[in-house]
């Protein structure tokens, strides 16, 4: 992988290495724009010259100065008083990014961002605003990570998405925390006519306590939301992750897919909620959980709320250990039990389910390999 150091000389190499693990790479043909924040400081922002005039990317504090209307977007989709974390982020915000893909612009390569915690016991509170203007298309890879030497941290991330008419946004978020870190993302999207919002989430490294429930309001006709999560919990981790889609528009669609693995004494609540408020709406929810330890727990909580006659909502959920017959099958092809387990886990966490363009899917897959998450 390319080294960020070449471009970002002002940022210590060790931090860049951590950033690379969550998807940051050197600017060039592979990235259209970059935002990099450490703690509450904007560290680096730039747009690849080819993409100038096609998108905007800046610290949210700069965006508020530049565009008075940004203030009106903040807390429009997420309730400021929802809980102690949203209140904390509202009282003392610490930056975050503003990304706006301009009208009609279709970006072939992704925008990248990284939010990093570099100080011990730091409580990072960011507020991100992402706008995909009418007819635009973009992929965003965003990584949240704490520096190697930081043991305890807390991350509160408010993200609000505005997906305008005929726009398509593919947002992939990769988290790489440590076992004493607490994480509270609070995200929501609002979608206009014929828009598509694809939200992918990966967390395969230890974390103490992670709770989030991103939502999308599919208010536009023909709007489509798709949430996919790949989670791997270790030791005593408590992960409570769900996604919610409210289907209000005619022919609005949503799909929520989660694949979760719990090992050791970890617990994962894998939630999902589809609300059918339109008679022509349709949604499907799928949760698969693998238990890799006798004390591990996966609690699948799928909820369907049909509020309109004609809305078509479905779900399937399965939780259990790796099937013996699958293990035996792979072993009969020449793998040890450990190797077979590893292949099955890797297959379970298949990045093809993200619906990313092929090159990005392969990239995310190779990143996951680098994370060296335990496989048995």
């Amino acid at each position, binding site marked *: 992988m390319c080294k960020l150091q070449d471009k970002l000389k002002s940022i210590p190499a060790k931090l860049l290495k951590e950033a690379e693990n969550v998807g940051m790479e050197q600017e060039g043909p592979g990235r259209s724009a970059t935002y990099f924040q450490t703690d509450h400081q904007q560290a680096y922002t730039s747009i690849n010259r080819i993409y100038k005039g096609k998108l905007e990317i800046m610290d949210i504090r700069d965006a508020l100065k530049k565009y008075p209307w940004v203030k009106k977007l903040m807390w429009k989709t997420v309730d400021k008083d929802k809980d102690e974390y949203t209140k904390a982020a509202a009282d003392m915000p610490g930056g975050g990014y503003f990304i706006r893909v301009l009208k009609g612009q279709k970006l072939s390569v992704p925008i990248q961002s990284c939010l990093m915690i570099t100080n011990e016991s730091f409580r990072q509170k960011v507020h991100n605003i992402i706008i995909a203007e009418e007819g635009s298309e973009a992929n965003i890879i965003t990584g949240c990570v704490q520096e190697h030497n930081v043991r305890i941290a807390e991350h509160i991330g408010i993200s609000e998405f505005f997906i305008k008419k005929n726009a398509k946004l593919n947002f992939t978020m990769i988290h790489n925390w440590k076992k004493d870190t607490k994480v509270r993302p609070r995200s929501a999207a609002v979608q206009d006519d014929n828009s598509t919002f694809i939200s992918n989430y990966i967390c395969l490294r230890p974390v103490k306590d992670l709770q989030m429930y991103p939502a999308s309001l599919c208010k536009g006709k023909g709007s489509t939301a798709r949430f996919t999560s790949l989670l791997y919990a270790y030791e005593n981790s408590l992960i409570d992750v769900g996604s919610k889609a409210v289907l209000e528009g005619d022919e609005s669609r949503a799909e929520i897919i989660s694949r979760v693995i719990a090992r050791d004494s970890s617990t994962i609540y894998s939630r999902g909620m589809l609300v059918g408020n339109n008679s022509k709406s349709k949604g499907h929810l799928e949760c698969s959980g693998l238990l890799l330890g006798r004390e591990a727990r996966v609690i699948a909580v799928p909820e369907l709320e049909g509020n309109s006659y004609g809305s078509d909502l479905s779900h399937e959920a399965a939780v259990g250990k790796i*099937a*013996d*017959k*699958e293990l*035996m*099958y*792979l*072993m*009969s*092809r*020449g*793998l*040890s*039990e450990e190797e077979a387990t590893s*292949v*099955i886990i*890797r*297959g*379970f*966490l*298949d990045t093809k389910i993200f619906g990313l363009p092929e090159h990005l899917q392969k990239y995310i897959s190779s990143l996951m390999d680098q994370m060296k998450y335990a496989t048995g």
Partner: protein
Amino acid sequence: MALLKIKDLSVASGRKVILKKIDLDIEQHETFAIFGPNGSGKSTLMNTLMGIPSYRVIKGSIIYRGKDITKMSILERVRLGIGVSFQQPPEVKGVTLKDMANICQGKKPGTELDEETMRLVRTFKLEDFLDRNINVDFSGGEKKRADLLQVLLLKPRLLMLDEPDSGVDIVSLKLICQEIYNYIKKSKASAIIITHQGEVLNYIKAKRACILYDGGNYCYHSPQKILKDIRENGYEGCVNCRIN
């Protein structure tokens, strides 16, 4: 020396005894056929020979190339050259046929397949299945073809094929069997083939066969004669062996 020697083998699954006092020798370079009604223990025998732990040997032994393999793991048996094509291979989500082809050849999943492997893939009409999750939404015949491909890629000394002709169309069966037969001839491997109709034996020649009935084996003879006797007298009649 026989390649495989099964001596007084009794096998249970859970509390149920399925195989009772099986004695069977498979010679070097021999292809041997096994007939038997549904539920007679044919697949149990294959799974036991492969070392699947849910099939518990309660008596007897399995000697392969002079070694007692009765307590060996699946992997050890694979390394000794035993390869099986299952009757009902499972679905494994996220693992593609291409991954399986690589695994069988001791390569990392994701490696590009070489020309010889691709030739086999084409012969087995599986080009469009390479990137699909193994056995997921495959028809019966497609599963069978994918499984037989894997067995050939393992390059085993002993092939165990559990109903290779079930669900496979006649044209594909001919092509696949020719490949298996060529492999057996070229590598001088041995094979045990379980079959109901004996269709596969039109392409892969076997000199000897036996009946497995109610967990025991009976009536060693040529497959053609045994099949004829089964057709005339049923399995029940055949176990009394009236072939001379």
